[in-house]
């Protein structure tokens, strides 16, 4: 029984980690007042870039960096469009996803079916060998630990740092922030790039650790779920993080439920994360004061500099 529980908890962590990265990244982007619907596309580019670098260099660190860089490059394209050319954020985000799905499939064609050893897991003699808590706390891979570090960093940045305060000011009222003398463009550019890098890391986790291979469209809607998690977490890092773990739990239900003898076709189990997303969105959005208090007031609005 303990073994089963451990197996379940380990898969929850694995399923949650890509969501944690993508959701925390998008949270920062949205807090600056920019809605980037291209998370799915950025994650896919991160996944294929990390995989390609991992295959050709054999270095997992370079692979992770490659994933982050690819996500960031996609985000830079998005920033150029919405900040430089003042394009509609919803449409541009959709374009980014469509483009990312196509480009990652094109680039990844040569990598389909190529195996890659999974990301190394931490191994501290003595600690990792502890029963139950050992593998759970001291036996994860680098990206899992990094996702926890990023949670602390993002929560500290938004809640405690001066730069985080400026970021939130820009998201709440870009005109006021501009009038005080902050560069709305610069803040938003950095927030978009950070979001891209985090999405890239989320994608990298999928192709390096979760299922160490490349499959077309392997994110399977996780980018969109990450977007929903930001709303679910009412734009607060810790809640978004908790949401990611909740979803990790829902995702892996399908893997274990059949083992417990529930005789429901696999397709219905696979629907669960998507249905759960809808349910939580409804639960949060029906409370309008909750959303209005927490959503950045300038989310999705185009900023035009006035003299």
């Amino acid at each position: 029984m303990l073994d089963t529980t451990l197996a379940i908890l380990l898969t929850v962590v694995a399923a949650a980690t890509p969501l944690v990265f993508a959701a925390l990244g998008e949270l920062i982007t949205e807090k600056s007042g920019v809605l980037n619907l291209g998370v799915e596309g950025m994650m896919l580019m991160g996944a294929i870039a990390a995989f390609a670098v991992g295959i050709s260099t054999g270095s997992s660190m370079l692979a992770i960096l490659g994933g982050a860089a690819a996500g960031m490059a996609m985000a830079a394209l998005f920033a150029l469009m919405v900040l430089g050319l003042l394009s509609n954020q919803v449409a541009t985000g959709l374009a980014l996803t469509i483009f990312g799905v196509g480009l990652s499939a094109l680039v990844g064609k040569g990598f389909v079916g190529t195996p890659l050893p999974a990301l190394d897991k931490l191994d501290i003699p003595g600690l990792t060998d502890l029963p139950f808590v050992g593998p759970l706390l001291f036996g994860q891979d680098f990206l899992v630990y990094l996702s926890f570090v990023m949670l602390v960093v993002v929560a500290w940045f938004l809640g405690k740092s001066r730069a985080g305060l400026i970021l939130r000011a820009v998201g709440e009222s870009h005109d006021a922030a501009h009038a005080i003398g902050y560069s709305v463009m610069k803040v938003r550019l950095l927030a978009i790039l950070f979001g891209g890098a985090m999405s890239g890391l989320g994608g990298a986790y999928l192709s390096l650790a979760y299922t160490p291979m490349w499959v077309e469209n392997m994110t399977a809607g996780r980018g969109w779920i990450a977007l929903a998690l930001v709303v679910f977490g009412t734009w607060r890092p810790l809640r978004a993080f908790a949401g990611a773990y909740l979803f990790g739990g829902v995702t892996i239900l399908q893997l274990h439920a059949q083992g417990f003898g529930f005789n429901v076709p696999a397709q219905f189990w696979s629907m669960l994360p998507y249905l759960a997303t809808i349910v939580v969105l409804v639960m949060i959005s029906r409370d309008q004061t909750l959303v209005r208090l927490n959503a950045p007031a300038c989310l999705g609005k185009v900023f035009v500099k006035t003299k």
Partner: protein
Amino acid sequence: MLPIKLEPRGESARTVAYFTPLLAVILTMIGGFVLFALMGQDPLEALYVFFISPLTSYYGFSELLLKATPLGLIAVGLSIGFRANVWNIGAEGQLTLGAIFGGGMALAFYEMDGFWILPVMLIAGVLGGMVWAAIPAFLKTRFNTNEILTSLMLTYVATLLLSFLVHGPWRDPDGFNFPESRLFWDSALLPALLEGTRLHVGSLLVPLVVAVAWVFLNRSFVGFQIKVMGLTPAAAGYAGFNQKRLTWLALMIGGGLAGLAGVLEVAGPIGQLNPTISPGYGFTAIIVAFLGRLHPVGIFFAALLMALSYLGGEAMQIQMGLPLAVTGVFQGMILFFLLASDVLIRYRLRFTMNSAKAGQESV
């Protein structure tokens, strides 16, 4: 700083709005040229294979019209929503439900003859799409839930539902366990429009829908309300337009047309239900809607162009051994370039090479 500045125009330039899709196509061709060169292909030959070769045969031409059919139908429906600021991006799921409802009728009336079977299937398909679009419509109007995320999540659910049906209850009993339904009976198949091709009579619905949509948007009061709601939601509120009703209407039109496209696919070129009935028509139609400037006539031509991107991708795969994903890259590129060029509608470029003075004098 760049020596180019964006300067707001007094009002949006309509002529530019009709010109930017063309600019986007030209930029996409240049982008494609660079992309193919990077991939080590002869760019000119690649562009010829992609854009021209599919149109050099009678059959290729019929395939163009065939693939433009679902794109045009869905995009007209989506454009009405986009005009009202209703972002239904789950047309792919609504298409799938249309195929399930319509295809379900075909299987229910298997081995039966009758002129009424096809109309029943088409109506069922439209209803299927509407049912699926009713979920985001209800959640949006009742709980204020973002329709972008709900409609998209439902696309994944729809695909899984179809997969369950063709793997389980609707699987062909004589089909060697392949995840496919029976081949539809003749009475449930759309007659061919051109002899020897896959083009079917359902394609005739596209010009009809385009015409009806044009009249609806330009000559009806509800169409006017939809435009106002999209342009200035506040004004629509002051005028007392029922925004919830308009949201419902926009999603019902979008869902119904996507469902129609779905049933036309299974009753036309596919002829049965299988797990992959659409190569992403529901998503590509979003691009078609924008490229057609959310205008029914514009969408008609944009649908033909995007249909060409599918044929071009197939031609590249066959003739040059390139992956089919080229299609997606082209589609993404064209939307990017379109959104980028659209800045010219509201702003004009001013070259500030000499000094800032030039700008001041003109004011």
